[in-house]
């Protein structure tokens, strides 16, 4: 993740390759998670981010390390994109002591405060208040930090989102709402749950909106960069609607999906709008790297991920006596 945000104009080789590597890292990580689930090595369930990598990476590359993000039940991608390490994440997913939350949070609650990740959230729209409050805090403390609030289009059903957007607009808070529209609220198409036009909603609360191709990391990066600049300038919140798609099921256990979406639809997205292919092609086209270089990145990342998964499986569980620690902060 960038320490200094790069201006939208110059998406050069370095940034492009870093984005490619990060997206690859997320994909490898998630495919590994799926394997762990299938081989019954992971407790509980997980919501995979595969297919949506360009959103998390495009957004987080436009942020500084000290900027904040809040995440969702589908949060592994956000966490990695904001700078988390794969080994501590696997440890958390397996409930190990070395995990980011010492095993107390798990997949749906990973937080990484050193990198500004205030946590995934298992309540849909549950972190919209937290992100807006972090922006309030940044402004009150006189820093130029920005808070990004990730959520799926299903969160548009939760009233609290409108309550906090209203205040973000009134108080010109430096927050960027990032709606990841992957078309499905679990097993129901968003058109059955969402009246009117998504973009009109934030606009009605005085929050400027931009619609972005969520499969194009460069487009996401550029749009985020504009929104972040606006926020740092003190001009208040923005809202990005990123059209994207999840390749896997709602969660790792959701394998028979025919009753709510067609195989054709899935195949078409993978074939025509894969974020890694799109950025990879652009990189090669611009001569920033050759196919081989990209393949090497993929291999290295896969090796890193495989090693981390191994490590996590061997890592120790927390001492059961830790169960009643950390209930109160003092």
């Amino acid at each position: 993740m960038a320490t200094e945000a790069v201006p939208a104009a110059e998406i050069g080789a370095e940034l492009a390759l870093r984005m490619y590597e990060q997206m690859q890292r997320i994909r490898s990580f998630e495919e590994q998670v799926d394997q762990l689930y299938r081989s019954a090595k992971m407790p509980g369930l997980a919501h995979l981010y595969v297919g949506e990598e360009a959103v998390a990476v495009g957004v987080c590359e436009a942020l500084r390390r000290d900027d904040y993000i809040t995440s969702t039940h589908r949060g592994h991608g956000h966490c990695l994109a904001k700078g988390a390490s794969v080994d501590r994440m696997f440890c958390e997913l397996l409930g190990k002591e070395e995990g980011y939350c010492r095993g107390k949070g798990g997949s749906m609650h990973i937080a990484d405060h050193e990198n500004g990740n205030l946590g995934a959230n298992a309540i849909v729209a549950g972190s919209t208040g937290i992100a807006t409050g972090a922006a309030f805090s940044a402004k009150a403390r006189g820093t130029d930090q920005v808070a990004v609030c990730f959520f799926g289009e299903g969160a548009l059903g939760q009233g609290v989102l409108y309550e906090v957007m209203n205040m973000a607009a009134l108080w010109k808070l430096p927050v960027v709402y990032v709606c990841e529209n992957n078309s499905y609220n679990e097993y129901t198409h968003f058109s059955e749950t969402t009246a009117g036009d998504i973009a009109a909603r934030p606009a009605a609360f005085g929050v400027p909106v931009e619609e972005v191709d969520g499969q194009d990391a460069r487009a996401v990066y550029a749009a985020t960069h504009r929104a972040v600049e606006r926020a740092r300038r003190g001009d208040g919140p923005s809202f990005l609607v990123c059209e994207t798609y999840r390749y896997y099921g709602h969660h790792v256990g959701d394998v028979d999906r025919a009753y709510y979406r067609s195989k054709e639809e899935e195949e078409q997205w993978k074939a025509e709008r894969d974020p890694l292919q799109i950025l990879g092609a652009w990189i090669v086209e611009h001569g920033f790297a050759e196919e081989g270089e990209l393949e090497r990145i993929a291999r290295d990342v896969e090796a890193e991920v495989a090693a981390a998964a191994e490590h996590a499986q061997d890592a120790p569980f927390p001492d059961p006596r830790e169960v009643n620690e950390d209930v109160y902060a003092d």
Partner: protein
Amino acid sequence: MSTPTEVAVPKEHEGTREISLAQAVNEALAEELRRDPTVVLIGEDVAEAGTPFKVTSGLVEEFGPERVLDSPISEAGITGIGLGASMTGMRPVVDIMFGDFLTLVMDQVANQAAKVHYMSGGRLKAPLTVRTTLGATRRSAAQHSQSLHAWVSHVPGLKVALPSTPYDAKGLLKTAIRDDSPVVFFEDKMMFAVKGPVPDDEYTIPFGAADVKRDGEDVTIVATSSMVYVALEAAERLAEEGVSAEVVDPRTLVPLDRKTLVASAKKTGRVIVVDEGHRSYGASAELAAAIAEDAFYWLDAPVRRAAAMDVPVPFSPVLEDETVPTPDLIVEISRSLLGKA
């Protein structure tokens, strides 16, 4: 949750079948949708998906999308809509996927539904049923594992049911839907696969009638929802030690069958209350206090409580398993009550 011990069905029923608790709930919904055109089911992914627990599968196919509605992710909104519909001639069943999401509907449930009848001087009523879940150990972490039945039980105007068997679940849910007052109905998500005998013929189970799941003489174990199985398993083990434990399931917390609980306490003189809500300020406190009030002079020892540890439910299995009552714990407490520890 421990594996269930066989629980019998009252004699009066002719034939019975073994079905899961999920199927029992599904049958209750289907039968009420069939018999009463004012019954509708509203919730997230309740139609084609049949909920993440597959409890409502097949209903939209039989009753159509006008009566089985997939809603947006708007718990407060669907509960409010269910309430308004209930006040104007319908009997809606609102599905709140996880009991943890009750946090989002407390205004609709506690300030609105619970008070409509009283505030209107008895002129309006709200025959609304809110179905939701409770229970941990599913490795779902702090926001998908809570047992919040104590909250709604504390609100006058609401009735609260938490069945432990397929038989009870079907009979109590049918009663809930037909009740003219709002009911919050809790199903333990770890019990959906639990099988048990359910009568072939139609039946309902009245609210406010506790069920003695096992007779005993030496110690009374009052247990709710899936904790009934924990209690029954403990009772089995205690039997091997020559200790006769009685297991009493209140089945509804509001109305509460205080009489049956107190009668058992007076008989055995020793009581353990087992509930999966957090220990402090939980349902187990009311049950313990009520028994101590009415059976005080018959008790040989203080009423003991076994409940969920007062910590958010942790994800890691090694931690989560520490937080819920187990048969071992109940056996141990029973021994100490009997001076055998």
